[in-house]
């Protein structure tokens, strides 16, 4: 299964297991995330794809009773090392959530929040520049440049999600995790986000969880199929969608179950 050599991969997962209390949610998942590519995680509801995604920047730490086993590395560093600085980890691995969750602050403050806490800008000018660049990269600048001081919650759903992406980009992470970023959006907003993901691939390593197989096919280069907490199959997107090796994958992508 180890199709890509470790040196090319940004992140490795080895024998990753997750327990919620006494319930096991992930079983020995081995998955590599290649650099500057989009990796899509697909599978039916409750298959563990989101759980795995949240393991990658240790967002599971926040959940009571969640235990992660196995090993996940970023550039060869074990990210579950007890001495590891979670804050720094998340500064390198950003995340965008299923539902847009802008802070109840102005658009500007939303984007500037990350750079501010990490002290990435020493002057107001630098900060302005980071905000502008991030919003531009997220394709939102033109729409909001006139109203940066208005609350981020006043934007439309699609705009809010792009604002959240801009907020993630502003910290200049290396990896961006996206947890079903389009599930709450209409087709037009979805299309915009997909376009954006394609552009971001040049600079960022992206892992995206999606329910839409079309979306996975459109935006990703690698696809992993999860089922009942196990990683069933993983490889180039084209290969997964055209000639899956496992019949469960076959069944899922042809819509026979899921």
């Amino acid at each position, binding site marked *: 299964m180890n199709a890509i050599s470790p040196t090319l991969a940004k992140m490795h997962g080895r024998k990753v297991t997750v327990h919620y209390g006494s319930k096991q949610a992930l079983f020995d998942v081995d998955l590599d995330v290649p650099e500057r590519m989009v990796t899509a995680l697909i599978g039916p509801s409750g298959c563990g794809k989101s759980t795995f995604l949240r393991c990658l*920047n240790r*967002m599971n730490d*926040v959940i*009571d009773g969640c235990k992660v086993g196995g090993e996940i590395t970023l550039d060869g560093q074990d990210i579950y090392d007890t001495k590891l600085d979670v*804050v*720094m*980890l*998340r*500064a390198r691995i*950003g*995340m*965008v*959530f299923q*539902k847009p*969750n*802008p*802070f*109840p*602050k102005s658009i500007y403050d939303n984007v500037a*929040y*990350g750079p501010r*806490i*990490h002290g990435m800008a020493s002057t107001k000018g630098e900060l302005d520049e980071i905000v502008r660049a991030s919003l531009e990269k997220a394709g939102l600048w033109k729409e909001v440049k006139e109203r940066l001081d208005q*609350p981020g*919650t006043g934007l439309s759903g699609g705009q809010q999600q792009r604002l*959240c992406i801009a*907020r*993630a980009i502003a*910290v200049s992470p290396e990896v961006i*995790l996206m947890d079903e970023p389009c599930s709450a959006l209409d087709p037009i907003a979805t299309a915009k986000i997909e376009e954006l993901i394609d552009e971001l691939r040049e600079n960022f390593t992206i892992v995206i969880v999606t329910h839409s197989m079309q979306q996975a096919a459109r935006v990703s280069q690698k696809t992993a199929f999860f089922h009942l907490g196990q990683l069933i199959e993983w490889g180039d997107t084209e290969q997964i969608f055209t000639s899956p090796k496992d019949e469960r994958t076959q069944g899922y992508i042809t819509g026979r179950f899921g």
Partner: protein
Amino acid sequence: MPRQRGFLGISTLLGLGLLFANLLPSAAAARDQLHIVGSSTVYPFATAVAEHFGQMGFKAPVVESTGTGGGLKLFCSGVGEGFPDIANASRPIKEGEVADCQKNGVSDIVEVEIGYDGIVLASASSAPARALTVRALYLALAKEVPVNGVLLANPYQFWSEIDPSLPAQKIEVLGPPPTSGTRDAFLELVMEKACHVFPEITAITDDKTRKAKCQTLREDGAYIDAGENDNLIVQKLAGNPDAFGVLGYSFLADNRDKLQGSVMDGVAPSEDNIINGSYEVARKLYLYVKKQHRAIVPGLAEFVAEFMSEKASGPQGYLADKGMVPMPETEHATVKAAVLAALPVASTLGAGIDLGATSALLPWIAAGLLLLLSSVGFQLGRRRAFASVRGATRQLHSLPGYHGIFVGLGAFLPGAVALVLGAVAAHYLPGDSRTGHDVIWAAIAASTLGVAALGLAWAQRHVSANFRARNAVERATMVLLIVCSLLSILTTVGIVLSLVFEAMRFFAQVSVFEFLFGLQWSPQMAIRADQVGQSGAFGAVPVFAGTLLITVIAMVVAVPVGLMSAIYLSDYASRATRAWAKPLIEILAGIPTVVYGFFAALTVAPLIRGFGASIGLDVASESALAAGLVMGVMIIPFISSLSDDVMNAVPQAMRDGAYALGATKSETIRQVVVPAALPGIMGGVLLAVSRAIGETMIVVMAAGLTANLTANPLEAVTTVTVQIVTLLVGDQEFDSPKTLAAFALGLLLFIITLILNIVALRIVKKYREQYE
């Protein structure tokens, strides 16, 4: 069956309504136990007699401590079961009060002298013994004293300045407030007596002016109004060796290990010295008995006889054990004989207007029959509904149960209205005789049932397959719900009306402007013709400033502690810690405020005082700091649970968003969660502020009565609620601005909390509009 349950629910509710309608008239019915009101000085003695009396086969009388004036006011307001039978007094009844009594038909009052109460100047037993003179006391406490031939504002700060033989200690006397009878006696027996030796005073020819000069106490902090609770004064004295306290002799007698009584003009305060008259700072105590009530309440004369018996108020009686100074034997015998003559015990055991058993039962029988009739209606309605479609319930518009409820209500509602109206009418009808009551109630019961039967018949006629019984029942229920929600409006209207009328009377005498902006509060206006008016200033600013000061201190404690605990418990603590810590903190909110009051007055205040003294700060015994700190502790759980709720309501997604950017936990909380929850937290804090402003018992016990306009938390200030309680619980006169001021304060307090709440709601609403 849910329909059955619905019927049960409705009938329980209606039954409850009936229960209360019935309790009200029966509560006002015959009384077989004496009701005694009045002086807090006589209270411990009257209660002791009451208890002995209760063991003699009578029901023990109910004794209320209302203050002499308040007691006489109640006593004089009428004749009948609703009015007290005996008033205790620590001073003789005034002419004005007698006139008031006459006006209300209380024409036959018997005055009974029961004994003496010595007024002592006590200090902590740890302090050196200090012999005082009335002259020194006068010079220490009068507002203006003669200095070299002229009256000047009292210049003395230390006892030694008055008399070199006295210690060089700051003058600090804790004593009763202007509303207290003890204070009147103190003014009369010490101040008035001492001032007449000064030629500057005797030179004043106008009686009133002279009296005013003699009896006006200084208001600069040397004399501290210390509330009506003498035990608190005892505790405060024990903790402050420099201070003197003006107390009743009984408190000295019972606290001899903590207190010493100062020798006055060479005579020590002792029982013997008070009886033989050599200790002159003593007054007589009285009972006023409403002779007309002999026929109304059983045991009136017997109670007085017990009170005057040798074993009670005699020189060796149990009242002497309770600290009353008894009359000498011969005097006691004379008084006793006179009283027994005026109030012969003999045959006339008050029969009272005993409501006959029928009258007492009739309301209940009527209510029971009404409920029975209603449930019969329910069954009839249901049957008829079934019958109208010959059991094919699907053809009914509404389920049969609804038809049942409809008919049941048809019987109940008119019946209940008739019963309640009847009860109200019976309450106001002059029913002097037993048969009269029986007749009235029989009529009420009959009309109730008649009306109910008519209603039943009317409703029963409506039942048919197409009748929309459910809609009718639901409409009735809706009306009930609306009426309930209007009750809160009614409460507010009641509050406002009960405050506004009295406040209007107040503002007729004191201008609104003076009340709102005046900088001096000293409600010591003469309330009786013979009492000397002090300045009588009604500027509410210092009172509100005091409230504000204590509230601010409370908030300084409660907001950070409450907010931080909420944050810790909601975001940091483990589930297990949260499970025990949160309820523990919530207990703080449940602790009765009386308990906090004691804690503040007896534990916290002396601690602060002691600490202040150790670093050379002068802290008042009743510092705003003590009351504020303790109130802050009480408020902590309000803030913590309210902010906990609003912070929990901030979606997890918001926190995730911040974490995903690499924010630490504290950054997430401080910069994302708290700002998002801020309006909710603000609303909670404002609610807590209004709770603090309205808090009464803590400040009644721990804060002062003197209205200082200061921002120094180490000084004593007074609050709105303290003033309301003192003005209404002490010696009072309901036409005087002094008493009416309480209502004006209450009104202002209500308006302020109203504004705070409206602001709080606005903030919360604005926040919702912005972020939802």
